[in-house]
């Protein structure tokens, strides 16, 4: 029934990705010159030119882009100029780290943020609510990198409770490298995840609060109260469910940003994820890695939003077509 929708959304998604990579490509040539980074200071100008020619960097950008597209369509993103390894391998190697970090931090943010937002909505004048809003504001007022380093200072250097960098003793489960297998490895994830979560937490608390306040004022909630339903059931089954819909959308839209924000967290905590890879790639002007990373972000973004759309359709019966009244 939704096949048409799915196909057309997928096509649009493909265009989005092509557009993203086109924009990105147009900008790459200004990021820096990979050749100067690939050869030592003592290499001669002729050597540099030769390398530039060998890499095809002397050709027009449009041509480079087309070739990139052609190769990418075949799943070939080329070799990293910096590491000389297939970009796909590099990204797949780093993907689990970033995904674990973002998913875990999103989980923290949701698990803390939703109840906090609810409390703030239900008792807007209470002291707790004010405290929650205050904390959530600090989350947006302080730059992520600053929060990160303050956490390191507090929990690693002064208190000595948590490790300050890296992923620690990770375990390999098949091709997936995880921090969840042992407490020892899990500890490494706490600070980076919390840093990243703080950024999302703010957003979620505010969204949930706003939506809850809005939903709580609606007629069907009053009607549920008039029916004498217990408060808990009204809150969770009726209010929260309705309030979470827009929240899910926004979180979906934000996920691209969060993955990008992971770049900063990863830099501060030396977390070996894709963000760090990208940061290195920018410093090195490693074009294939940058291009693949941006495409990947676009793919993740589009996929998540597609999923959110379908989730929406699944949850909200009003969005399913071919039903009843036309209004």
């Amino acid at each position: 029934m939704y096949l048409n929708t799915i196909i057309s959304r997928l096509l649009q998604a493909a265009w989005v990705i092509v557009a993203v990579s086109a924009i990105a490509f147009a900008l790459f040539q200004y990021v820096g010159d990979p050749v100067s980074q690939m050869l030592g200071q003592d290499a001669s100008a002729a050597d540099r030119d030769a390398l530039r020619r060998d890499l095809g960097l002397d050709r027009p950008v449009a041509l480079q882009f087309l070739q990139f597209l052609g190769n990418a369509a075949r799943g070939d993103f080329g070799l990293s100029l910096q590491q000389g390894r297939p970009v796909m391998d590099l990204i797949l190697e780093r993907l689990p780290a970033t995904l674990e970090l973002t998913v875990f931090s999103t989980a923290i943010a949701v698990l803390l943020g939703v109840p906090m937002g609810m409390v703030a909505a239900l008792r807007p004048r209470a002291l707790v609510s004010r405290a929650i809003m205050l904390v959530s504001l600090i989350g947006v007022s302080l730059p992520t990198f600053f929060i990160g380093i303050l956490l390191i200072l507090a929990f690693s250097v002064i208190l000595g409770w948590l490790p300050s960098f890296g992923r620690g003793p990770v375990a390999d489960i098949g091709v997936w490298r995880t921090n969840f297998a042992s407490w020892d490895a899990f500890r490494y994830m706490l600070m980076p995840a919390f840093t990243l979560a703080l950024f999302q937490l703010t957003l979620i608390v505010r969204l949930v609060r706003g939506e809850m306040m809005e939903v709580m004022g609606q007629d069907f909630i009053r009607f549920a109260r008039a029916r004498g339903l217990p408060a808990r059931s009204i809150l969770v089954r009726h209010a929260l469910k309705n309030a979470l819909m827009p929240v899910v959308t926004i979180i979906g839209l934000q996920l691209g940003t969060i993955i990008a924000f992971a770049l900063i967290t990863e830099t501060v905590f030396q977390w070996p994820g894709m963000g760090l890879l990208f940061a290195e790639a920018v410093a090195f002007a490693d074009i294939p890695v940058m291009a693949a990373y941006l495409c990947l972000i676009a793919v993740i973004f589009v996929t998540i939003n597609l999923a959110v759309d379908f989730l929406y359709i699944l949850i909200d019966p009003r969005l399913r077509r071919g039903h009843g009244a036309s209004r």
Partner: protein
Amino acid sequence: MTPLLDIRDLSVSFRTRAGLVPTLDKVSLQLGRGEILGLVGESGAGKSLTGLALTGLLPPNAVVTAGSVRFDGQEVLGLSEAALRRIRGRRIGMVFQDPMTALDPLMRIGEQLVETIRHHLRLSRGAALDRAAELLDAVGIPAARQRLRSYPHEFSGGMRQRVVIALALAAEPELIVADEPTTALDVSVQAQVLELLRGLCRDRGTAILLVTHDMGVIAETADRLAVLYAGGVVEAGPVGPVLSEPGHPYARGLMRAIPQVGAARDSLVPIEGAMPRPGQWPGGCRFQPRCPLARAACGEPPPDVPLGSGHVARCQFAGVEEEPRHARA
């Protein structure tokens, strides 16, 4: 016999930026078992507020400043939220004004019914489902069993209004407050819904407070009638006499202003002016600025004048033959 519902001198104010604004002023109403009391009045007169006050569902910025509301002998005002919850739904059912927004859009109709039934009647899920189907059937929704699986948006406005009524009936309350249950409906469906309510009174002895501003609806449904104007009851009594021989000039004006099929073309006589909003009430009789009979004496609070068989009008000229003084036909 004490009435099932006894509202005495209920006054409600709103906290607003201009301070406390009195919005209901000394409203008194009585309602016995099996009786339908019509509550009519212009938009903003305070009809819905009266209904909401019964179950403690007033907006957060409303304060009850005086009066009492006794339900089956028990004072309702000032009850705790928990105690109110035992009354709501179980003993007093509410039908809300707008069927489009009163149902949770994300929950199946059946689920909303089952939830309410199970909470109040402590039935098993299966039994609750059976009862839900019965209820839908009772309010006239065909193929009730299958429709339990529908979502609100799949129902037409009339059907939704009937679902709202079914929900109000779910726990067989003794009193139903129906707030304009038919405003959103077509004439044809309207008749159907009113029929249902009347049936309930007849068969189960349910009392109904029927809030509306449609005189026609009252005429064919209610036993007794109270006319609300600017926050106060201006006339009350059995339906027949109030409609045919209204005592208050506002009620009289209202009757004349209703266009009727088959009536003479030029007979529409409007009441000039508009009802004052809360906070802008004049002293004394609040109808005075629009009243063809207004005199200096109307500056005093008007008395309740009994007109026989429980028919009361709050006007010092009630019962006095009206002089045709209005300016224009």
